[in-house]
């Protein structure tokens, strides 16, 4: 994550890279650029806390429910990271609303990434239904990258489609690296420690 104190918004801009998440209650803007990944903006309107997650579900999701799907468990964990940070600040998932962006089908990406994009879309819809978190904006799919700015104190999002990938070459490189790693590590689970 990059912190820019001199943004054009007149407040600190946190730039969230693919695979990262952040939650805050400070006056700032969270920004990112997404292609195949999804960007989730969560908002707790009572505590005025916002959180952003930027990730992909690394594969296709089965039809039996995300709670019994090993690929989906990585998406669930990505969501848990963002929501967990919001809870630490006093947030409560029962009060959250969501705005979701991205999961574009981009030219030049492998079929594997496209499967991930489809899996991510399916995951997002199923996850928010199970969690009973209302999705206020569902802006997934299409064929262009999106630039997203999120105000965590009022939940507002500014979204712009990028034509010809303008000014996003660094994000494209980071996204490709992140997706490669996400697919490579999809069989990896968290460690288990037993205390004496």
């Amino acid at each position, binding site marked *: 994550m990059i912190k820019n104190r001199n943004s054009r918004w007149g407040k600190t801009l946190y730039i969230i890279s693919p695979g990262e998440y952040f939650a805050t209650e400070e006056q700032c803007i969270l920004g990112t650029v997404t292609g195949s990944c999804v960007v989730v903006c969560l908002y707790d309107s009572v505590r005025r806390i916002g959180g952003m997650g930027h990730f992909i579900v690394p594969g296709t999701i089965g039809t039996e429910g995300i*709670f*019994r799907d090993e690929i989906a*468990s990585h998406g669930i*964990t990505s969501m848990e990271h963002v929501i967990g*940070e919001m809870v*630490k600040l006093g947030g409560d*998932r029962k009060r959250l609303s969501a705005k979701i962006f991205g999961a574009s089908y981009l030219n030049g990406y492998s079929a594997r990434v496209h499967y991930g994009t489809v899996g991510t879309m399916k995951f997002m819809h199923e996850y928010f239904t199970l969690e009973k978190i209302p999705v206020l904006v569902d802006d997934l799919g299409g064929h262009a990258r999106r630039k997203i700015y999120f105000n965590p104190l009022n939940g507002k999002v500014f979204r712009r489609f990028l034509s010809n990938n303008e000014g996003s070459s660094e994000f494209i490189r980071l996204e490709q690296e992140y997706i490669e790693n996400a697919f490579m590590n999809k069989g990896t689970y968290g460690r288990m420690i037993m205390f004496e």
Partner: protein
Amino acid sequence: MKRILVIDDSPTIRTSVEYAVKKEGYAIEHAENGADAIEKVSSLRDAGDEISLCIVDVNMPVMDGITFVKEFRKTDRFTPILILTTEAEESKIKEGKDAGASGWIVKPFQPEGLVETVQKLIG
């Protein structure tokens, strides 16, 4: 039948854990946070039932997982408690151990690994 209390504010996680362990023949109870779990344990005890194992998240509203472990240990020193969380920092893990947890599992969890651990703890 052995009874497992799954404590997590996420219904998706509670259902994932239930799906993984229920097929092994355990009965499952759900709680949304530490305070809800303490109440549930107390009403089960009043009804003459007991919990064989708790699986608890760390970051939850109302009462977090570490506080739950400390509260639970005031009246029960022996029932195993597994912490299941995205938190992986050593300092946090030590906090869980010091509070009286039996083990720490970092999400995402492997269903077979979880079942194996549960079986080791309560048979």
